[in-house]
């Protein structure tokens, strides 16, 4: 249900009920008041006749008794004066005996020839005065009064409904404009909606919407970057392989051997990138990495990692002896350390040593790995754990630190990077103890 319809319906029905109720109430009041004042006038006219009769000497009309004088009648009004014994002295409408014949004082309704009359009888000393109003005249009068009151009321109520419709439409026009703007946007348009000219009630809504748009834009950008990066990382070695293979078919001897060797190296690089990508994908899909409580021996894992990365000769280790209960699986810790060692070798000064420092702290184990090298500017440092972010060196898949980051976080640890003062990159891992 549209907001406009809801508003108009709610306000309209309320207004109509209020107006209607008021009208019904005042109409009822009006009828009662009118009846009442007409009754009073009836009674007054009876008293007036009684007053007039009092001025006439009693003997005079008593003499006349039984010798009724008929007064010419007015339409719709009747009157009769009679003695207490019931002798009619004077009156109109002799044929309306059944209506005007009355003993007791007070009002009553009578019917005569299909027409209703309002009758009032006044008993005054020795005479009885009865006056009657035809009800048809009263009804006609009431009808006229009602009609006179009804038209302004109708005009006012219709007018207020129209005003209501217009007012609601006007009040909601910023929403309508907003809707039109949203509908006319291009499909892929993720730019923020302008906040200018929006009423205060909608602002928070649009503000929230814009924040969501911004976040969506960022996510899409990141996805796009990832796709581009992945395409680049996978297609570059593939290009090298294909080109060198094609060259190898057209040359001989040493050149051919070189081309095949290059193709081989390309295959190795491609398969390494693929392995890393698959590892990363697996890690991100395995929500519960540590179903069973796991623990790894830091020294064993480091040993393995140094062997796999072939950089044992460069490592300078300074570690607590008792680090046998790191809460992570052996293979994961080895992967983490191997990636870090390979990074340190690739990006550091060629023959410089890699410093490895590990100790148990109050809330887990801290492992620091540092190489010597150029300082990395802070803005690049912050993006290093993003997938496919590499140093200036073309070697490596650009996935190493992403994998370290993913594993560390899954294991409930944290990763910090520093650079400067001759240190190319210092990686500080915090991992919980089992």
């Amino acid at each position, binding site marked *: 249900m549209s907001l406009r319809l809801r508003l108009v319906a709610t306000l309209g029905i309320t207004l109509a009920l209020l107006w209607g109720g008021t009208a019904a109430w005042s109409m009822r009041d009006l009828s009662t008041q009118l009846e009442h004042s007409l009754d009073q006038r009836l009674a007054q006219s009876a008293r007036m006749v009684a007053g007039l009769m009092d001025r006439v000497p009693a003997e005079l009309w008593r003499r006349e008794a039984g010798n009724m004088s008929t007064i010419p009648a007015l339409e719709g009004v009747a009157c009769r004066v009679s003695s207490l014994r019931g002798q009619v002295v004077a009156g109109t409408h002799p044929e309306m005996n059944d209506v005007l014949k009355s003993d007791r004082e007070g009002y009553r309704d009578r019917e005569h020839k299909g027409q209703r009359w309002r009758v009032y009888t006044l008993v005054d000393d020795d005479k009885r005065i009865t006056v009657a109003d035809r009800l048809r005249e009263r009804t006609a009068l009431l009808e006229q009064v009602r009609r006179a009151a009804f038209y302004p009321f109708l005009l006012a109520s219709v007018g207020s409904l129209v005003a209501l419709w217009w007012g609601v439409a006007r009040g909601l026009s910023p929403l309508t404009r907003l809707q039109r703007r949203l509908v006319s946007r291009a499909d892929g348009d993720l730019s923020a909606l302008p906040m200018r000219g929006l009423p205060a009630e909608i602002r928070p809504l649009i503000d929230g919407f814009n924040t969501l748009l911004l976040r969506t834009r960022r996510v899409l950008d990141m996805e796009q970057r990832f796709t581009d990066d992945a395409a*680049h990382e996978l*297609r570059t070695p593939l*290009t090298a392989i294909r*080109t060198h293979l*094609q*060259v190898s078919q057209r040359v001989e001897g040493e050149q051919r051997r070189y081309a095949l060797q*290059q193709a081989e190296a*390309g295959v190795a690089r491609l398969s390494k990138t693929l392995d890393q990508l698959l590892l990363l994908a697996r890690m991100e899909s395995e929500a519960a990495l540590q179903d069973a409580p796991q623990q790894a021996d830091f020294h064993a894992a480091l040993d393995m990692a140094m062997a796999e990365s072939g950089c044992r000769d460069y490592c300078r280790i300074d570690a607590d002896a008792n680090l046998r209960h790191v809460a992570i699986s052996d293979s994961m810790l080895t992967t983490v350390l191997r990636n870090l060692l390979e990074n340190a070798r690739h990006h550091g000064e060629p023959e410089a040593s890699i410093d490895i420092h590990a100790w148990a702290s109050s809330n887990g184990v801290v492992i620091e790995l540092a190489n010597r090298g150029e300082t990395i500017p802070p803005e690049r440092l912050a993006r290093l754990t993003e997938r496919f972010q590499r140093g*200036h060196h073309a070697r490596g898949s650009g996935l190493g630190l992403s994998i370290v980051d993913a594993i560390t976080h899954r294991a409930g640890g944290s990763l910090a990077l520093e650079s400067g003062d001759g240190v190319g990159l210092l990686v500080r891992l915090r991992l919980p103890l089992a």
Partner: protein
Amino acid sequence: MRVLLVEDDESVAAGIEAGLALSDFVVDIVTSLDAANGALAVIDYDAVVLDRRLPDGDGLALLQQWRRAGVATPVLILTARDAVASRVEGLQGGADDYLVKPFDLDELTARLQALLRRAVGQADASLRHGALTLDPAARSVTLNGQPVTLVRRELMLLETLMRARGRILSADQLKDSLYGIDDEVESNALNVHIYQLRRKLGREMIETVRGVGYRLATPSGNGTS
């Protein structure tokens, strides 16, 4: 034909260089936008093969900069991004052609040759000069319909002269088209190649313009003896 290859991946660059050398292209490799800019300022390349993703930025940005500066050298862009939008972006950015990695070596060669052909406003794949015909793709030369055997550098020299269409080329320009930056060149190498060409095609085929350089002689009648 001398080509500048801007590609930061060593192995890919080596592969392309080796592949293009098979079709007698002389390839200079640079690995950054900066170096590409420097190389293009010094040497008059016949074409540039430009990778988009380089350590110091997007190759397309450099290309746009070149085009704004009025550099008309044909440029073929290499990229790993195969989305239609990025191809359009590349072509609108001033690229003459666009290849998505991994590409076929023959396709790269053919496209480069097409670019060179277009650059001199030539529709036919073969170069012709009087009775002389050179097929750049097949690397063959015929004179009056008879095949002529030329060694690699002689063929490259002849191709350069034919593409110049009678314009005078200096000795340095000719050497540039024959040798890369890293090639060792003997001082009289060019003279030797000119001599050999004259011996095989006829003395009048190549004119020496004293103090300026060399050009192909205006063809007369049915060609040369």
